């Protein structure tokens, strides 16, 4: 026990970093996420094959030396498609979850703070209305108004995410408002907005991390559904979701076409989840190792 305990009260940055480094989930998750993020970034400067170029004669080839992950029904290189598709898919999912969180979480906190009031009622019924609209209808409405694009897919999925996060946040916040430390915060003169962010939010963070990673993977898949009706990234811009959707009818004789985008989604989401779990442990004071 030779490590010095810092005498100032401030938590040491190294302490957090060291804890983070000891966290296996965090590291593994971070690595996985980095691989795919890296692939997306590399694709800006280099891909094995141009994804806009087709080679019909060479279509539906299982993996072999020249095409490590095989080719799709237009003879395009699946590896390259995956790399470029990572850009769209990750961007859509991250931003859509971001929109859902940035709007939904405060709404949920607000509603919980004013539980039982008119405001709560208005917020939650508004959420119900948005939630009840089938995402397809929202998608069609948005395309109709603004034309199809990946941006609009982000907005559509983001809108759908808002009530999800609002509800989850509110449910977590409701019980917390009964805790005594809220009284202490109120004695310190903090208003409900401040209490919500300083005291409620950190305590619902676990729920949000879990829900966030779930919505992330649903977002990648939703983009595929939306591009089917015309919203979403327009071809030839590839996206994982659409690669999957396109491969649907080939599944019985060319499973590789679905397998690799499926794996890509799976591993990315897995990475994020591991990271989520890791963060959760990192932020959980009771699980922290001694500050060494």
């Amino acid at each position, binding site marked *: 026990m030779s490590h010095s305990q810092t005498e100032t009260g401030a938590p040491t940055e190294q302490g957090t970093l060291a804890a983070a480094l000891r966290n296996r989930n965090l590291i593994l998750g971070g690595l996985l996420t980095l691989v795919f993020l890296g692939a997306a970034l590399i694709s800006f400067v280099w891909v094995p094959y141009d994804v806009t*170029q*087709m080679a019909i004669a060479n279509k539906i080839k299982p993996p072999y030396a020249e095409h490590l992950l095989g080719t799709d*029904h237009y003879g395009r290189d699946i590896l390259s498609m995956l790399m470029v598709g990572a850009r769209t898919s990750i961007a859509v999912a991250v931003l859509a979850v971001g929109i859902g969180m940035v709007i939904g979480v405060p709404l949920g906190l607000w509603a919980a703070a004013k539980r039982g009031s008119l405001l709560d009622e208005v917020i939650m019924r508004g959420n119900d209305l948005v939630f009840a609209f089938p995402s397809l209808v929202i998608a069609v409405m948005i395309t109709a108004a603004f034309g*199809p694009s990946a941006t609009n897919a982000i907005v559509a999925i983001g809108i759908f995410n808002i009530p999800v996060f609002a509800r989850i946040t509110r449910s977590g916040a409701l019980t917390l408002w009964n805790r005594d430390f809220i009284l202490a915060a109120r004695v310190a003169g903090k208003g409900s907005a401040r209490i919500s962010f300083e005291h409620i939010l950190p305590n619902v963070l676990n729920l949000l991390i879990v829900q966030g990673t779930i919505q992330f993977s649903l977002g990648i898949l939703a983009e595929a559904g939306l591009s089917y*009706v015309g919203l979403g990234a327009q*071809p030839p811009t590839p996206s994982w979701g659409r690669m999957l959707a396109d491969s*649907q009818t080939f599944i*019985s004789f060319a499973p590789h076409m679905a397998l690799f985008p499926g794996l890509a989604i799976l591993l990315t989401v897995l990475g994020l989840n591991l990271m989520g779990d890791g963060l959760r442990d990192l932020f959980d004071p009771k699980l922290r190792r001694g500050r060494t």
Partner: protein
Amino acid sequence: QDSLTLGLQLEPPHMDPTSAAAGAIDQVVYANVFEGLTRFGPDGSVNPSLARSWDISEDGLTYTFHLVEGAKFHDGTDFEATDVVFSLDRARAEDSVNAQKSLFAGIESVEALDPATVQVTLSAPDGMFLFKMAWGDAVMVAPESIETITTNPVGTGAFTFGNWVQGDSITLQKNPDYWGEPAMLDSATFKFISDPTAAFAAMMAGDVDVFVAFPAPENLPQFDADPRYNVLIGNTEGETIVAMNNARPPFDNKLVREAVAHAINRQDIIDGAMFGYGTPIGTFFAPHNPDYVDLTEMSAYDPEAAKALLEEAGVELPLSVKMTLPPTSYARRGGEIVAAQLREVGIVAQIENVEWAQWLENTFRNAHDYDLTIISHTEPMDIASLADPDYYTGYDNPAFREVIDQIAVESDPEVRSDLLGQAQTMLAEDYVAGFLFELPLHTVAKTGVEGLWINMPTQATDLTGVYWDN
């Protein structure tokens, strides 16, 4: 076995073929439940149906139809000349909602001479009149049943309408009182399966016996290799084209259109989008038609020529255009390939996938707001539609119009054939569109089902001759 389950991709919205364009309606009821004065045969020929014969006056203006005897509607009432009058008058009435009202535009009057004879007077001679009377939109309906025709169709056909589980299936029953050759099946059920993968699974699992217009050509080799199934490959009336907006730049310039035509590699599209099925076309005409002229060489794949043409046209490269794609699989897939091919010659076609409703509204109907689109024209003999300068293609050629006008009134087959050839050549020479292929029809059937139509001269699933051969 005397019942049959058929898979269809689209469910009819309702059962009245005379008040909607949905081919899905005809697909179920044409020739099975409803019959017209004439009807299409499996090869597209026009044959007698409820009119057993007819006389045409010298001037070609008066048609006298002799109706079959003993025909009854399914509700038990007799089919008589007054029903013909009613049906045709209803279709051409002021407030008619018949989707093909133009079929009846030439009719001056319809009269019942006696219960078994009807006289139709035209305002001008029309060589296509009997053909027009064979359409699903011209079938005979019973006046008493008009109120409920959308849910309970009453016709004269070999099958009566049985049961409709909306969203799922429609069952037809054999009509024991049929006036003609009775059906060989006791009942037939149409199941509606829109998802291509589901269609494959349903067929494989044996849930359906026949799938008409099987939607995923990529799965056909599997059925072909399987002795339990037969794959019937036929043709439709669907000319699939890359439509170009002739009315606005850059495609108002024939050179640019020609460049596009040469940039397109038909075989790649047929291989990539249709998995090898489909006959290449070089003009807007069905290749199985005897009057078809093969002009594919005029728009042979030649990217170098395309580039040269673009340069000649003086357009700035890369030329950026929009390609609007409706939701059909041939359009979405074909569009992606076309875009890739165009990119090779310096045309960047931005793909915009749209819904059918939007395509109809923005591309086809009002605004004609598009540069390129892909669509299959499935009506028989629809070359005439291109003559309309207000048509979405925006093709405005008085010479072509004249030829089409002549065809309409010409009844001498030889002259007609010649005129049709001229019209086809004009379209090809003007590079009105990128002509891709004639849409094929794939029907997958269990071995033992016989008597199915192989081709689809009109949207129909004629079950009158279908039987199990065990």
